[in-house]
């Protein structure tokens, strides 16, 4: 642990502004990528997801890490608190996403296959 929350009274203004700059740069990169949408990234697939979407997701999780660790000061909390929050959320969200996206893809297949007209 970097330092304990209970007796950390020295100012961390410098770190706050550094994190702000990092978050801004990541957001800018996301926006620029979203506007120009490079053909290569849009048409290359990795594990049935566009490369550009993988980049967006990784950048978002990176931003989430900085907000939680620096701004919400998770880096200064005990290992127990950190794990009880982050691991719980992590496991449940990964599970939820896996189930719902698999199911959504299945429903899509069914709608393509079945002898029912969806556009009439």
């Amino acid at each position, binding site marked *: 642990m970097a330092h*304990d*929350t*209970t007796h*950390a*009274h020295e*100012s*961390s*203004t410098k770190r*706050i*502004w550094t994190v*702000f700059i990092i*978050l*801004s740069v990541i*957001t800018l990169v*996301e*926006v620029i990528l*979203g*506007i120009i949408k490079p053909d290569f990234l*849009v*048409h290359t697939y990795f594990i049935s997801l566009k490369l550009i*979407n993988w980049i*967006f*997701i990784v*950048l*978002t999780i990176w*931003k*989430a890490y900085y*907000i*939680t660790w*620096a*701004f*919400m*000061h998770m880096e200064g*909390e*005990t290992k*127990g*608190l950190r794990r*009880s*929050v982050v691991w*719980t*959320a992590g496991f*449940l*969200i990964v599970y*939820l*996403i896996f189930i*719902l*996206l698999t*199911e*959504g*893809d299945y*429903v*899509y297949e069914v*709608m393509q296959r079945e002898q029912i*007209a*969806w*556009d*009439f």
Partner: protein
Amino acid sequence: METTVIRTGTEGKTWGGGNQPLKVSYGKLMMWFFILSDALTFSGFLASYGFARYKFSDSWPIADEVFNHFPFLHGVDAPMYYVALMTFILIFSSVTMVLAVDAGHQMKKGKVTFYMLLTIIGGIIFLGSQAWEWKNFIQGTYGAIETRGGNILQFVNDDGERVALADFVTAAPAERVLHERTNGLWFVDEPTLPRYTMEDVLAGFEANPNLHVRTQELTETGEKVILTRQASMAKLQNEGIGIIEGANLQKNEYGHPLFGDFFFFITGFHGFHVLTGVLINIIIFFNVLIGTYERRGHYEMVEKVGLYWHFVDLVWVFVFTFFYLV
């Protein structure tokens, strides 16, 4: 009393009681667990949005075309600039919040007050921006045709640029009058009548040979399918049942009704969090002002409301990615 004390043999050990293994106060710990449960609620929303996206992966609306407004730039196609601006506003208000917490650690009342005020202003600007975004979404820009199957048809010119209904349709003088409580049965009324009938649209479409119908379907390269002139005419005549302008929870001019529903629920639920965040921030701001925490000897309350405020920012980061970017 001493006889009732039960010795467990764990005194002095981690589980013996009387210690704080997580080394935070009760209030902060409970704020963390509230945030955890709230994060799961938002994940439920976003994951079910993902479900709908996968289910309609060949016909989902393109976010860049829907959210392309910017204040004072009428008619200019500005995809995502406005949402990006909103993201910066929220990130910046998060920075001022963490600066307030930092000043609180050093017991500097003036600085805490100033940064809390900036945070509140940032939150209010964000809420206003979201209201403007909703206004654009609800009003709509181009209008569309609803088909019998519940799909929508949009209009483009030869160059593939979107054309609004108002640009080529003129309303014929109508016999039908809106039924209000004042001019009909006093106990019933009806929603506003659509501006144009299907006949008006067909007449306008025939008179403008450069128009084409664009369907919801996406091509392999992720663009919407544009029909030929004949196919457009046939589609309108056989399937069109009326016009849609703007959006509500039942239908919208952008595509699937679910797109509008998720927009209203996800951004609405987030906006509600921002609103409560601003209200709590205001309460804490006044407490700082009257010196409550100065007397208490610590500014932990600012830290707790700060946690909530950063969480609201955190959620927006994900909403931004999954609703506007992906």
